[in-house]
């Protein structure tokens, strides 16, 4: 299989980029789809769909150990995808990239494997109140079983982490610190590099939830000096069913396996086994080969656009959205006011209209897809005194005209609710 890597020097127009995404030309309820839910899952460019298609049409077989042409091709495709991802996040070695199902599984892998080997009763784990449930519940389970303690860095009214509290918690010598690089509710971009350095100075291991940031910001795991970084393929133009755990080599080497089975072993006897090398030690069973190929194609696509361009585009579209949303009466925006501290996510509420009613009206009358609810971050919602918010989120294909349709829909919702 040949990889087609398009190297483009000129920035492409968003209109041109949209042409790469077949779904963006469909209609819903007789209106052009306005997809503003990329923080939940992004749409896929043809390059990704076709890479997976081509893999299944020409090269599929089970990977590793197959001593015939197409199995060797499939193995090469899987490992090539790993190398692409490693380059994308600037990992030192591709064996530090472990394929999982998604961010949630990556975090659980660390919580079970590293956590069980290293966390004891009375140990401290520091999290933040802005975490997605996937970076909260695995640590609750670990704490319940090990007797470890959980402490939380609170969020200020502006939606920023209270770093003075973080510093004080670090003084208590936590074993592990885990936080998100970007809030999926508030869009807050946390100062992870500084936070990691502080945590290391306090002797803690650091896990970064990059589910929201890896698709949208340039990510350099060596520059960040993160110990573990977790993200999902489907939020970054890739398919569902594939995620990544990046880890520092010495940590990964020392960790016991997570799932047992085929592929993760070196040798097996009836009563004991020895483990395979990294990364396969953590990849039990037949992996998601086509999905890895799709993720590789997604990474190529993003690299061709350039992650700096992606960030610039989202900063511009988010600034436009904040400006336009502020013209809607009775609309309240949550999270940081400044575009520098915010990714392409805007949570808001409109008068006393429940976000689900809002989302239904936007969908039915305007073809606008937004998310409504607690965004899998109930503790944060409680902290904000909210049951639910509406959330619009943006990506490489989002146009200012789509923000205009959103704003038009919100004004219509006010009319419907006679406000």
């Amino acid at each position, binding site marked *: 299989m040949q990889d087609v890597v398009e190297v483009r020097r000129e920035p492409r127009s968003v209109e041109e980029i949209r042409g790469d995404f077949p779904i963006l030309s469909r209609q819903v309820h007789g209106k052009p789809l306005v997809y503003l839910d990329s923080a939940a899952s992004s749409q896929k460019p043809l390059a990704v769909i076709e890479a997976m298609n081509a893999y299944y049409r020409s090269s599929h077989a089970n990977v590793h150990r197959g001593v015939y042409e197409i199995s060797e091709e499939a193995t090469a495709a899987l490992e090539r995808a790993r190398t692409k991802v490693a380059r994308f996040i600037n990992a030192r070695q591709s064996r530090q990239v472990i394929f999982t199902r998604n961010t949630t599984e990556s975090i659980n892998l660390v919580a079970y494997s590293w956590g069980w080997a290293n966390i004891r009763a009375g140990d401290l784990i520091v999290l933040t109140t802005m975490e997605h449930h996937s970076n909260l519940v695995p640590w609750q389970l670990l704490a319940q079983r090990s007797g470890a303690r959980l402490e939380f860095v609170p969020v200020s009214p502006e939606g920023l982490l209270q770093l003075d509290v973080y510093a004080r918690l670090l003084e208590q010598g936590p074993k592990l610190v885990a936080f998100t690089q970007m809030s999926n509710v508030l869009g807050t971009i946390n100062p992870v590099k500084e936070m990691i350095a502080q945590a290391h100075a306090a002797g803690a291991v650091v896990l970064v939830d990059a589910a929201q940031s890896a698709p949208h910001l340039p990510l350099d795991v060596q520059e960040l000096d993160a110990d573990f970084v977790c993200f999902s393929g489907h939020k970054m133009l890739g398919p569902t069913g594939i995620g990544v755990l990046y880890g520092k080599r010495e940590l990964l080497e020392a960790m016991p396996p997570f799932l047992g089975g085929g592929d993760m072993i070196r040798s097996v006897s009836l009563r004991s086994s020895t483990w395979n090398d990294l990364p396969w030690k953590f990849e039990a069973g037949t992996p998601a080969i086509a999905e890895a190929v799709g993720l590789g194609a997604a990474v190529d696509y993003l690299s061709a656009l350039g992650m700096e361009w992606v960030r610039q585009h989202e900063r511009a579209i988010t600034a436009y959205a904040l400006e336009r949303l502020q013209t809607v009466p009775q609309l309240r925006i949550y999270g940081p006011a400044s575009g520098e501290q915010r990714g392409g996510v805007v949570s808001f509420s409109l008068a006393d*209209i*429940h*976000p*689900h*009613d809002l989302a*239904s*009206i936007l*969908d*039915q*009358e305007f073809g606008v897809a937004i998310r*409504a*609810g*607690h965004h899998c971050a109930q503790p944060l*919602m409680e902290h904000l005194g909210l*049951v*639910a918010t509406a959330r619009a989120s943006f990506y490489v294909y989002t146009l200012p005209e789509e923000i205009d349709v959103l704003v038009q829909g919100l004004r219509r919702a006010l009319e*419907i*609710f*006679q406000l």
Partner: protein
Amino acid sequence: MSMDYREYILDHYRDPRNYGRLENPTVHVEDSNPLCGDQVSMDLLVEGDRVTAVRFQGRGCAISQAATSMLTEMVEGKSVEEVVRLGKDDILEALGIPISPARMKCAFLGLRVLHKSLVLAGLERPEHAEERDDEL
């Protein structure tokens, strides 16, 4: 959801009927929709074979709250036998607008609470309520 929320839905949402608590209810039940956080609690007063009073409290979207308000109007003063028979068709008919699959849980939250109450009060078989719930 259709093109607009009909006037009567908004009316029930803004001005819910039978809102509040009963002093000595036969049964009190609360439930929430974990997906969206909509909440409904309900008090029933059953005297003889009749539901003589009903009150509810809740917060959530217009569909969940209006549907529950409408449901309480169908319940009050009816025989237990009639109340046990109330189902999703009654709710959809009362709402009178198309409800998308994702919003069905909102529309039927009050109905769930009602049937939970009946089960708790020993007036409905749990299997019956569960079967109804599975249909939702």
